[in-house]
């Protein structure tokens, strides 16, 4: 860990201003990912701005019937919220499928969206990694890539986005609410929030320097049967090989989002459109353009199988 300075921000505006004015500053919320990365010097912030005390820890109903989730709402609290459990069950289930109880007690809504890949080459600073050190190459492409992404990847990077929560957020068409250093607010559709690696895998979101996530807004509840199905190498406390978030409507429509396979939380319209034709058709649509290695080519099959399991669960619940 490199030495750094620390401040406890007193307002959202001040936090954003400080972040924009200090080179190498980072916000710190739960710290469940950032601190680990700092210890390994994968992240080397010069200045930490603690945003834990800005009143961003509330869940409020929006005028149009949705829910605004403060960026600092802990994963545990969000998963347990009565409204979330009732109206956005897929989100609650996704949260509870992630990490451990201890981590969820600390991890925040905004931080979860910003968590970084678990690619093992990203995690070893002696290895090439374009995301960690642009231009150094990708260690994973010809290396051990069993856990890595098959969608949205590039020659520069095949890192996966590890979040469960973000997959549900993507399914629900959430919006990421931010404030920048000038106090300007914007609402970013989650579909546009994460960037694909392309030639610049180090750029992971559209956030500008200093821009801080203040909340995530869920639109009005969509009803239906909610399923989150996560497949991993052990029964708990592991990142997804494949996860599927799904909401089935009463009218036969459905929507799907995927974790463990994308450079970002993955959702394609064509997959939703194929809902009536079953798991195989949905998988085929979702996997359009998939690019696999010989370590992770099983994920294509596993997407189809996980979808089959999701359909089975839907039937059991209907």
């Amino acid at each position, binding site marked *: 860990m490199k030495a750094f300075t620390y401040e406890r921000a007193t307002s959202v505006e001040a936090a954003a201003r400080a972040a924009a004015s200090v080179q190498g500053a980072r916000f710190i919320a739960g710290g469940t990912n950032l601190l680990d990365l700092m210890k390994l010097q994968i992240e080397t912030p010069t200045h930490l701005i603690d945003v834990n005390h800005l009143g961003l820890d509330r869940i409020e109903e929006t005028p149009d019937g949705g829910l605004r989730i403060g960026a600092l709402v802990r994963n545990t609290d969000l998963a347990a919220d009565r409204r979330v459990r009732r109206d956005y069950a897929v989100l609650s289930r996704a949260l509870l499928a992630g990490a451990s109880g201890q981590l969820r007690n600390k991890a925040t809504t905004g931080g979860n969206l910003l968590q970084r890949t678990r690619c093992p080459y990203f995690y070893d600073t002696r290895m090439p990694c374009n995301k960690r050190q642009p231009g150094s190459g990708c260690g994973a492409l010809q290396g051990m890539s069993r856990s890595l992404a098959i969608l949205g990847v590039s020659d520069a990077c095949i890192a996966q986005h590890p979040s469960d929560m973000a997959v549900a957020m993507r399914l629900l068409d959430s919006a990421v609410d931010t404030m920048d250093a000038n106090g300007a607010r914007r609402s970013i559709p989650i579909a546009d929030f994460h960037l694909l690696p392309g030639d610049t895998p180090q750029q992971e979101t559209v956030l500008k320097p200093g821009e801080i996530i203040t909340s995530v807004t869920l639109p009005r509840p969509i009803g239906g049967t909610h399923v989150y199905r996560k*497949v991993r*190498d052990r*029964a708990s406390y592991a990142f997804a090989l494949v996860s599927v978030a799904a909401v089935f409507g009463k009218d036969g429509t459905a929507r799907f989002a995927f974790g463990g396979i994308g450079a970002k939380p993955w959702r394609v319209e064509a997959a939703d459109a194929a809902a009536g034709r079953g798991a195989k058709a949905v998988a085929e649509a979702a996997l359009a353009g998939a690019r696999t290695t010989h370590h992770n080519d099983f994920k294509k099959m596993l997407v189809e*199988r996980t979808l089959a*399991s999701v359909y089975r669960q839907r039937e059991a619940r209907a």
Partner: protein
Amino acid sequence: MKFDTPAGTNPIDQGRVIGIPHDRIDGPAKVTGTAPYAYERHDAAPNAAYGWIVGSAIARGRIAAMDLRAAESAPGVLGIVTHANAGKLGKGNFNTAPLLGGPQVDHYDQALALVIADTFENARDAARRVRIDYMPQDGKFDLAAERGNAVKPPEGDFGGAPDTAVGDFDGAFARAAVRIDQHYTTPDHSHAMMEPHATTAAWNGDRLTLWTSNQMIAWSVGEMARTLGIAKANVRLVSPYVGGGFGAKLFLRADALLAALGAKQVGRPVKVALARHQIPNNTTHRPATIQRIRIGADKDGVIDAIGHEVWSGDLPGGGPETAAQQTRLLYRGANRMTAHRLATLHLPEGNAMRAPGEAVGLLALEVAMDELAEACGVDPVELRIRNDVQYDPEAGTQRPFSSRKLVECLRAGAERFGWDRRKAKPAQVRDGRWLVGMGMASAFRNNLVGKSGARIGVDATGKVIVETDMTDIGTGSYTIIGQTAAEMLGVPLDRVTVRLGDSRFPESAGSGGQWGANSATAGVYAAAMALRAKLAEKAGYPADQAQFEDGLIRHDNESRTLAALAGREGVWAQDSMDYGDLDKRYAQATFGAHFCEVGVDIDTAEVRIRRMGGAFAAGRILNPKSARSQVIGAMTMGVGAALMESLEVDTRFGFFVNHDMAEYVVPVHADIPPQDVLFIDELDDKSSPMKAKGVGELGICGAGAAVANAIYNATGIRLRDYPLTIDKLLKAQAA
């Protein structure tokens, strides 16, 4: 005391304290955080500076240049140890590569420097500023590719001759009515114990003290003396609490050596712990294996020919994974062969991990037996009963087993598990989204004994004190040693104080190879016999007739309290148990039978253990509570080996890629259902006066094969390439 004839009736047979379930006596200290571990010895070594190890970024080559200037001028830095300033170092007998590398580099993350600073954070930051330029060399990292270059290794300290042969294996196998000939692979495994390797070191003149986390005190004193070129008498090693070892801490490792070198350089105590991500590549691991098993049997499954060949790799000078060990002793068959071949690999060094040999050997053998059972149409339990043998099948009837209750374990285990409900034909049972299957396997692990000593005394309050350099690596040594002393001297367990893990105490067998419990308590037995004689003499009673009970020594109608006899000075005795040739004349081993029921998801091929149980025969069970903990922990590790654990080798860079606990997955609570353990009554009078045998490793032996066989029974998919992960199951299903 020498143990060279079978034990008769002795005080241990009273079974007042021994053989009764006891909570571990060190438990309260551990759960209240008052048991000090190696990295926390602020009490013993105040003002310690912090060391951080710089590991090699390449697998093989040489250091071209080291630039320490940026690190030396970093805040708080007190010194940097490298090969250039460490002085001439010897190499221990137990480590293959030097613990401090340079200029030659032998493996990835080999320690090349120790940066010492006033704080942990400063040391870690400064370590990042050490600049090393390398001249890399090509290396060999792929066991499958090197299999053809593997050679017959020299005989090691454990595991016997590399090759054995009896009768005419080739001929008998060729003639057999039923033949199984299959290859199996197991990957490299990491011990993944909870406490990392850690040491606090301090010098007082030329005398070195190490507070460390180590399983084998006397070995490691010797290794440190050998490496530093100093007298053993000048090395003190203290390791009273060890947060898990599984073989990772049998030996002197880099944390201890570099803490010692660092403390010397900066003239104050230095402490060093390995970071989690350093452990897989800096330290030892269980080597990957390729195994070929051939079994020839008659149509009823009775074995006539059995062959087991094993290929593994290690650094030059290293040793093989002796995975054919159990095949020499477990089943009958007049025609037999085993062979171990060793390839050169420039990966980090391989070495012992819980039940070296058998743990992975049985992953292969017991699946081969399942395949034989199916080929013959014989129930897997019955097949094993038919092939039971009461003598060493390589040596013949003149070398019987000291005790062998495999058949009893198979029968009792099957009964308890409800094995008769298993459908012989695979893929027949469905429960909701789960395909359900049952599998079983024999458990086998050698019983090793070793010389072990102790000192025991009674003080003026009648309290009994035991001191030995035996370690408790979470296994329950404190408690069984306390029980032994209590039994021998007729006091309750709470009147016994046990002190372990200090090289100032008498040398013990240490913790490894499941030899610790039986050997160390036998050492306490020997010392206690000597103390009983002294106390009897003081009381004026004949030693062979005096009774020890209720804190008293009795003879006829007289009695004296131990407290009174001890007086202000106390009475002390010291002895050790040494062994004759009973383990040569008799094959000594522990046995069991594992049973497992799995569910395999009909869609995703996720595997969940639904039930798991076993029956085990390991001589006298000294403390059924901690023995059960040992067995279920080992069964859990067997599940890990079957389903998930694998160090992944990057054959381009030559290192284990998944070197943290997020990527090297071990079972968590959600993976493990309630586990049932039955101990079969057994006293082995040829093992030691305790009539006990080892039990700490038996539980892992065969557990994973039972899982694999259950998966086959559930799905009809036979995988022979561990771990049996979702990707492999899906691919096999699709094929």
